[in-house]
């Protein structure tokens, strides 16, 4: 995986990156709105190997197979929408500052503006909603978006992740796992938690390898 992907050349993505993009997109789609019957059936078809992530996917598939669509949508409402507020506030600003629409959202909007990403029509949550940031990560992994334009220290996919997701995503998935109403979403939280953990460690390893190769001396 290269941090300096060029958008015009559209390099062939490695299979690993395609899979990462799919996982980010799956997490984003589940956190964006409650899954319908078709989505649940698709989830029920997932299989996992013996790794922690594989086991989490297997549990998610079993949960989805036995889940009731109305119950899941009700649960989504209780956890993310609620009356007054949901049980969770899945926004970067809230997790980092304790308040909504704070500086983390401003930073994210600035970065998205530099990357040329705008909020889609009919999406009303602020951009620092976990699903929106996960969608951006999916786009970065798939090579649709280019994060190399961001400033020094935040450039590339690793920089974007480190700045906008790493400080709070793990905490969010932990909260999602223990929130009172979560049944189906407890399995989603497990997948998300393990996946974010893997991403964090992978980016750290990559940075370490990058430094060891001496590439840091030549700049980005």
């Amino acid at each position, binding site marked *: 995986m290269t941090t300096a992907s060029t958008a015009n050349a559209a390099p062939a993505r490695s299979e690993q990156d395609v899979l990462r993009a799919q996982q980010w997109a799956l997490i984003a789609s589940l956190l964006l709105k409650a899954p319908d019957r078709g989505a649940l059936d698709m989830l029920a078809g997932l299989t996992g190997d013996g790794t922690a992530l594989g086991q989490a996917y297997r549990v998610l598939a079993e949960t989805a197979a036995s889940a009731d669509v109305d119950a899941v949508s009700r649960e989504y409402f209780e956890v993310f929408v*609620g*009356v*007054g*507020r*949901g*049980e*969770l*506030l899945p926004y970067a600003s*809230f*997790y*980092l*500052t*304790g*308040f909504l629409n704070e500086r983390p959202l401003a930073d994210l909007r600035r970065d998205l503006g530099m990357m040329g990403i705008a909020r889609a029509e009919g999406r009303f949550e602020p951009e620092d909603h976990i699903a929106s940031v996960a969608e951006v990560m999916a786009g970065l992994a798939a090579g649709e978006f280019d994060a190399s334009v961001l400033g020094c220290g935040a450039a590339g996919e690793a920089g974007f992740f480190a700045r906008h997701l790493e400080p709070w995503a793990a*905490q969010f998935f932990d*909260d999602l796992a*223990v*929130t*009172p109403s979560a049944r189906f979403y407890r399995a989603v939280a497990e997948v998300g938690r393990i996946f974010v953990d893997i991403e964090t460690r992978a980016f750290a390893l990559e940075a370490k390898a990058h430094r060891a190769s001496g590439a840091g001396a030549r700049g980005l």
Partner: protein
Amino acid sequence: MPREVLRVAVLGVSHPPANKWAVRCTRPAALMADLPTLSPGALMAEVGEVRTYYMGDHAVVLHSGETAHYIDNLRAARPSIWVSCDGGAVTLVTADPYEGEAMASDPERLVEALDMPAAIARQIEVFIAAHHVGEVFHKRKRVPATSTTDQRAPRILPAEEKWTVTRGKGALPPKGKI
């Protein structure tokens, strides 16, 4: 909102004009807690050219939401009642110092802060004791998200804080076509 109306008598003093172009005007000069049986505008005393008029009795309305202002007033060196005159007639009498000073900023008005009679002060104290609700001013400041002392919104909404319909029409099933 509980409120209480006190009546206070206003005395006005008019001094002789200082020069031949000035005209006499009556300025509120003193307050009395017990109301005399005089009609408003009656001449009460005349010492040389200085005349004292009775300017009528007026309502001082105490509002329970402004007890903090009355406390500030009573704690001041000279507890006062603000009397506002418009065109020679008293239009408003208030025990709220902030309202009084706001009226004083209007150049069209003649506003005087007069010493509060002791009886009125006692009545206001009773009103404060009955209705004052102490509110601690809490300045919101940025603290790290990891702070445990700051009262911030909980990351996970506790079950007891969740909104549920318990009473009223909302608890009934929605009306509509069967």
